[in-house]
């Protein structure tokens, strides 16, 4: 069996039997069912409201996507940092994994956990929206190009914030403090950096919107990938007397996201290699 297969086999065995993972998944699914179920019921009971595909993707893959990112990051931190608390990372290396192999085994959790949370969100939200969709009357495909582009953006956003969670978990090696550090960054840390640097260097202000959390938020906006949805958002804003939403430079955000993922992975790897277990 190849090393990659061994790593994946072990990680999936550990994930399947980890109660904390299933509790987190259960809570996440409950929140999603309540949220999208409410939208579905509202649309059924109020003719003014709609929750049908493909328009519903705008809601399913925008407003609440950060919830998936947060839950996914929490799970990642739990899965990585407890390997140090229980000293199983040390034992894995003693048993024959190189530190590099161990690192990539854990890094493989990023797409696995990302896929689990992202597809759960899409399945639950999409399921409710599909139930409210009159397929015979639908004017366009319920899953089209914008959906897949937004899905790509969703994954990129997850990888950016997941890489940050991964880096924090490897650096701090304890789940509680690592979660606190991650939440502090998205809660106020990044905002403080933006405010501080923005005051000191005015020319930097446009670039400061592309720190990890800011970049993720841009990529978690479904309307940025769907011109029709964006047009609807502009019209809704004008009708409400609000300013129209700023268009997102998706290409720039995606490039920056790749940069953050590579940078955070490189820092994590070098830091992990340097430290004793």
């Amino acid at each position, binding site marked *: 069996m190849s090393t990659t297969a*061994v790593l994946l086999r072990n990680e999936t065995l550990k994930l399947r039997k*980890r109660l904390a993972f299933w509790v987190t998944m259960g809570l996440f699914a409950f929140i999603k069912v309540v949220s999208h179920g409410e939208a579905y019921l509202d649309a059924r009971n109020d003719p003014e409201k709609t929750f049908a595909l493909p328009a519903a993707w705008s809601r399913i893959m925008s407003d609440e996507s950060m919830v998936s990112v947060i839950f996914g990051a929490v799970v990642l931190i739990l899965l990585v940092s407890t390997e140090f608390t229980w000293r199983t990372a040390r*034992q894995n290396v*003693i048993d024959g994994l190189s530190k590099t192999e161990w690192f990539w085994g854990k890094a493989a959790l990023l797409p696995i956990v990302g896929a689990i949370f992202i597809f759960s969100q899409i399945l639950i939200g999409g399921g409710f929206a599909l139930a409210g969709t009159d397929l015979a009357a639908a004017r366009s495909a319920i899953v089209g190009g914008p959906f897949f582009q937004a899905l790509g953006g969703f994954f990129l956003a997850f990888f950016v914030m997941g890489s940050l969670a991964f880096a924090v978990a490897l650096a701090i090696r304890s789940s509680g403090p690592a979660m606190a550090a991650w939440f502090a960054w998205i809660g106020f840390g990044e905002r403080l950096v933006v405010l501080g640097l923005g005051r000191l260097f005015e020319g930097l202000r446009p670039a400061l919107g592309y720190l990890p959390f800011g970049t993720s938020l841009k990529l978690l906006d479904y309307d940025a990938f769907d011109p029709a949805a964006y047009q609807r958002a502009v019209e809704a804003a004008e009708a409400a007397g609000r300013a129209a939403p700023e268009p997102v430079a998706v290409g720039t955000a995606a490039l920056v996201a790749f940069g953050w993922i590579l940078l955070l992975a490189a820092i994590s790897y070098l830091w992990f290699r340097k430290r004793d277990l």
Partner: protein
Amino acid sequence: MSSDKHLTPDGPIIETAGLTKRFRKTLAVDGISFQVERGQVFGFLGPNGSGKTTTIGMLLGIITPTGGGFRLFGGDSPAEIHAARQRIGATLETPNFYPYLSCRDNLRIAANVKGKGEADIDGVLEIVGLAKRRKTKFKACSLGMKQRLALAATMLGDPELIILDEPANGLDPEGMREIRHIIHDLADRGKTIFLSSHLLWEVERTCTHVAIIQLGQLIRQASVAEITAGTVSVGLRGGDDLSALETLVGEYPGAVSVRVHEDRVIAELEEDDFASLNRFAAGRGIYLSHLAREQRTLEDVFMEVTGATESGFGEVQ
């Protein structure tokens, strides 16, 4: 290998040369060099904080040395050492497993990592007496079960070298006896065993060779027989005044050293001639009521070379 000493490629299973680890200001391991030959049961002794676990950690790749080097199975390049580690079963300090997984699932993880498949798992659980508890979660295991599971994990894949760090820690006498039997069985099957322990009498019963480390420095390495051999040690009682007896024996021409220990005088003699000593004492008017050989133990040697006291191991870094 960055080392001051030359290491031979066809030499021992473990060979260190000037191996050093510094944690910021603390020199945990100070240029130690030792060898472990194939088939030895090698005891690695030292007081708490002497650098035993750090040394083993460097051999196992979880701690990066800051100086010197080592060979495992004759190899010293990163690729050779990585390959050599596949031939080692080891446990360091406490048993480290996933608490939410069963004994068997934990061994599945270890077996997969070792790349040896899962065929051995039931066999090693049988050897350590955990076959009936294979489904018990690790967090529900007693300390003795955890130690036995760690021992089982080291045996997976039939490794040539087994490294055990304090395998009897926290065990009751029965548990210690079981661990000792397992180690003996492994040694009988031709395994090379590297055993770090505080339990000197256990090491003396189990090991063929020992190395003693203190404050990060190797202070003695020899076979157990060699290390406990030396001058003849004799215990004496006679008369009411122990200090008078001590003075008298000190004047005996064949005495190397004399000291009072509890209710008797202990003397190191150059030769095994107790009759001569008895005659010498009688000639000075003291008739010995007790004259017996004192068996020199590994503990005696350890106390002597580390300067430890009977009430403790003394000061460490």
